[in-house]
């Protein structure tokens, strides 16, 4: 059907009027949901998430033990998620967009599986580290740990995969950002363990700030 054909035309007798009206309402609803998903990404929220991640990278780099390092990044994950959720809700409310009936749900369903895998993987790897070293807590440095130095690359790649998936119906900047997270994550996996915090700072900090600014300028905060 041509794109500019009216949803309901009096010259189309084979279509029952109520069916055409239903089709029109469905078209309006689908368009609104698609558009809302498209623009509900918070730009300034991304900047704030990036700023906290940079601070976390600096703080985490000073931690002498894996347990301390992991605590910093776990706290940052919670802070980042909270900031992201709050700014997403604020932007959706400002635009009068329902969050849990369409755009928010689509975004969360795309993002959550990758994040949950990240949490599960982190717990499993940390548990293995504690078991293998025979300590209640992992007290050696991150760069000397058996497997935990692989986590930054995995976190970045899992987050990137989630963002690409969640951003499928969003502005092009979002999946593009996810793609760069995948790239930074891959580089982090290949890099020496001492670059763990640099990788996380560049990824969760730098990419969030840069793309947050771009999204805020082009699509609103």
């Amino acid at each position, binding site marked *: 059907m041509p794109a500019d054909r009216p949803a309901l035309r009096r010259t189309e007798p084979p279509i029952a009027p109520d069916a055409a009206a239903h089709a029109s309402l469905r078209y*309006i609803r689908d368009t609104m949901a698609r558009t809302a998903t498209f623009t509900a990404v918070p730009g300034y929220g991304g900047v704030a998430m990036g700023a906290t991640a940079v601070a976390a990278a600096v703080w985490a780099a000073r931690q002498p033990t894996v347990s301390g390092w992991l605590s910093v990044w776990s706290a940052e994950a919670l802070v980042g998620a909270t900031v992201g959720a709050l700014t997403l809700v604020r932007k959706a409310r400002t635009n009068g967009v329902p969050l849990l009936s369409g755009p928010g749900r689509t975004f969360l369903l795309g993002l959550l599986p990758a994040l949950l895998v990240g949490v599960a993987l982190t717990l499993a790897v940390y548990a293995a580290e504690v078991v293998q070293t025979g300590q209640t807590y992992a007290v050696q440095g991150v760069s000397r740990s058996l497997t935990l130095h692989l986590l930054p690359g995995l976190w970045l790649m899992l987050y990137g995969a989630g963002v690409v998936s969640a951003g499928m119906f969003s502005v092009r900047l979002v999946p593009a950002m996810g793609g760069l997270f995948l790239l930074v994550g891959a580089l982090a996996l290949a890099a020496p363990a001492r670059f763990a915090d640099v990788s996380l700072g560049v990824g969760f900090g730098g990419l969030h700030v840069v793309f947050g600014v771009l999204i805020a300028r082009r699509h609103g905060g």
Partner: protein
Amino acid sequence: MARPTDRVSPRTPARPAPAVPDLDAVVHQRVRLGILSALVAGGATSFTDLRTVLSLTDGNLSVHARKLEEAGYITVRKRFAGRVPLTEFEATDAGRAALHGYLDAMEAVIRVARG
């Protein structure tokens, strides 16, 4: 492309169109309806985003956006983001009212059809 269900045999007289409430001719057009719905849902939206979300060509979006602008249903802002020209559309109060009126009309059609 014509759909099979749209084909009416020349020997078959077309049934008279049922009475429907008066519709706003500006809004009662699929592309313009899509533009207005998108802007009411998403707030101020750039030309590029609107073109992508509605899968339109530049020319098609421009033509229909101009008609909505002439009707006072949307506003068009042109500015520069750095050195890049940026065209933004936003629904006006009249545009929101027109969409709500169209929704009311569609609901009325359904009510009438159900008796």
